[in-house]
């Protein structure tokens, strides 16, 4: 059936059932094989970094949290760690432990969500239903501990906002025990179910050299044998007090990424048990000033998707001078076109899902420089609007009914 001379372009996105968030993949197909993939992002850009500059640090806590729903605690903690470093705040031990606990609970919910989404992308809806049912246990636990199922609002400058009551600790262990049983059954499923293995293996291949060259992070990189994990290499919160394995795999394909995430879940349960056992007493926060002194800091965090980098620059006032977020998906997405080389269209959804894309995290501001003059230019709203109209008019669109606010038509 493959008419190998004809190339057909299939628009996967911006709206497509395979994608959880809008992004555009223009796929050139020959028959069922992929020739080339062109990716465009930016549909989720909300101006959060600019918004952070106009709000105080306290307000920014909640804004940065909402960069993403699934890894919201990653962004919140990375941001707050950077600010605390500029202000020179030393956190009490209990605050560090609580941060680690919530971080690992978030990792559980994110990986279980990913497992369900991966199942859905390959048509295995049963896996979706079961993993998301199990994920409810973590969501309810997080609601009890932090007051919300997502966007926990747990961090404050100098520590955490809520304490973990001693009677909650056995509850946490109960949830961990129950989820460990369930995760073991998913591991068994991944090792035995023939159709699952067939769909996930030898798909989305990324060699170790390519993973390093393209700058992938997180489980995507670890599945290609790259042994990097910010929790071990650059410990933050209480990670220097806990011992855990960094899970890598050498299959270099989507199956490897599944194996890595399942392995990370098992490690997470062990980390949580250690945290709960060794939870120190003490205050949960220290008083932080409203004005953060001049200075800049870079903070790294191992989000469920990979390394999340936040850069904050303070200028002595209540509002930050600049906040920059480098989400893990930004580092991973360039590997997608490599993974899809010579692949089938049917594998595209699972390959994209395997990097655990979170384009809400990714779409941040990028400065572009003109290729020739090496100049970057700022335009006002009116200039951008006129440029857009001119561009479309050159391609045959009729704008006779349009009025431009504040300036003459182009």
């Amino acid at each position, binding site marked *: 059936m493959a008419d190998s001379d004809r190339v*057909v372009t299939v*628009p996967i996105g911006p709206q497509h059932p395979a994608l959880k968030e809008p992004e555009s993949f223009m796929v050139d197909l020959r028959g069922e094989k992929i020739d080339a993939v062109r990716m465009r992002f930016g549909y989720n850009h909300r101006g959060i970094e600019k918004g952070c500059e106009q709000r105080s640090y306290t307000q920014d806590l909640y804004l940065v949290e909402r960069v993403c729903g699934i890894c919201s605690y990653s962004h919140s903690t990375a941001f707050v760690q950077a600010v605390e470093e500029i202000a020179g705040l030393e956190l009490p031990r209990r605050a560090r432990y609580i941060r680690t606990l919530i971080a690992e609970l978030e990792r559980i919910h994110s990986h279980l969500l990913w497992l369900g989404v991966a199942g859905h992308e*390959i048509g295995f809806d049963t896996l979706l239903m079961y993993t998301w049912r199990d994920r409810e246990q973590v969501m309810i636990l997080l609601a009890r501990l932090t007051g919300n199922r997502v966007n926990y609002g747990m961090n404050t400058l100098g520590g955490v906002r809520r304490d973990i009551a001693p009677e909650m600790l056995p509850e946490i262990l109960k949830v961990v025990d129950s989820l460990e049983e369930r995760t073991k059954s998913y591991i068994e499923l991944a090792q035995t179910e023939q159709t699952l293995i067939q*769909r996930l293996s030898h798909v989305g291949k990324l060699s170790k050299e390519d993973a390093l060259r393209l700058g992938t992070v997180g489980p995507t990189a670890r599945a290609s044998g790259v042994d990097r994990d910010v929790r071990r290499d650059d410990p933050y919160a209480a990670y220097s007090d806990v011992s855990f394995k960094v899970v890598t795999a050498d299959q270099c394909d989507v199956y490897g990424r599944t194996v890595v995430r399942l392995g990370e879940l098992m490690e997470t349960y062990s980390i949580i048990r250690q945290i709960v056992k060794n939870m120190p007493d003490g205050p949960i926060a220290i008083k932080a000033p409203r004005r953060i002194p001049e200075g800049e800091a870079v903070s790294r965090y191992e989000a469920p998707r990979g390394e999340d980098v936040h850069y904050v620059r303070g200028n002595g006032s209540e509002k930050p001078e600049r906040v920059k977020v480098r989400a893990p998906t930004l580092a991973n997405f360039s590997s997608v076109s490599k993974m899809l080389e010579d692949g089938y269209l049917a594998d595209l959804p699972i390959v994209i899902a395997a990097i655990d894309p979170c384009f809400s995290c990714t779409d941040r501001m990028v400065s572009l420089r003109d290729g020739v003059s090496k100049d970057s230019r700022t335009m006002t709203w009116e200039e951008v609007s006129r440029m857009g109209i001119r561009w479309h008019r050159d391609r045959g669109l009729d704008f006779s009914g349009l009025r431009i606010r504040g300036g003459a038509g182009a």
Partner: protein
Amino acid sequence: MSALLNLVSILIFPGLLFLLVLGLAGQFVDRKLYARLQNRVGPPWYQPVADVFKLLGKEAVVPEEADRRMFTMAPVFALAAVIAAYLYIPLWNTAPVFSFPGDLVVVLYLLLIPTLTFFLGGWYSRSIFSTLGAVRSITQLFAYEIPLLIALLSPALLANSWSIAGMAAYYGAHPWRWMVNLLGFAVGIVTLLGKLERVPFDAPEAETEIVAGSFTEYSGRYLAFFRLAIDSEAIVSSSLLAAVFLPFGLGLPAWLGVIVYLAKVAGILSILALLRTVFARLRMDQMINFCWRYVAPLAFLQVIIDLVVKEFV
């Protein structure tokens, strides 16, 4: 008088109306079972009916680029073919509405038409996702149709008759001989998943890859007809499998026979729903591989078994 009786048989019972009602009931059984197996609640019994009425009430959009005639006629042909096939299948006794020698082959051809209409509907929608889905539908034919045909024809070899009613009569006369064909039954169930485009063989309708395949551009009453055709196809194919591989209980009094028939169809639908639940979707090439490597040889084996039994019994 006979003409009037025929008309009632075709349009009402056990023809069009009965088949549609059974089709909707079958869809409910499938969706409810699928949900319960996934620890969910599932839809209420009237959901398929409500869905049909909802679709009938919505605007039916025909894309500008599409070939209007083919686009609108494809669903109708699917439904018509399926109903026509149903009339030749013995349900709860050995006398279907119509019967003639060779009607087994005709029924198999009629059941091929829905897949062709999926292809035509998708192709003439002229939308990229529809085209991909249409092409996949036809490609999938190469994988499952041969094993299905062979499996369905092997009991006919044993029964020495090419009419389904004739086969039913033969197996009615020789009770328990249908057990020889159980391998063919298993092959039939697996390939039925391909014909009905269900997981693991639902690549033509893979929601996460090509939106809705051939049905992407369909809406309103055209989509309603296609859905009815698919639901009815499920019932007709299950009835065919039941008539060919499970031809017992055909001599019972009518009311008991109806219950046995419904139980057979419900049983086959339940197996299909269970299979839908525990597998992931196979890619096109993996599916073709699987069907030719494992399913087709088993179908051939069934033929050999039937020939051997015929020779020595």
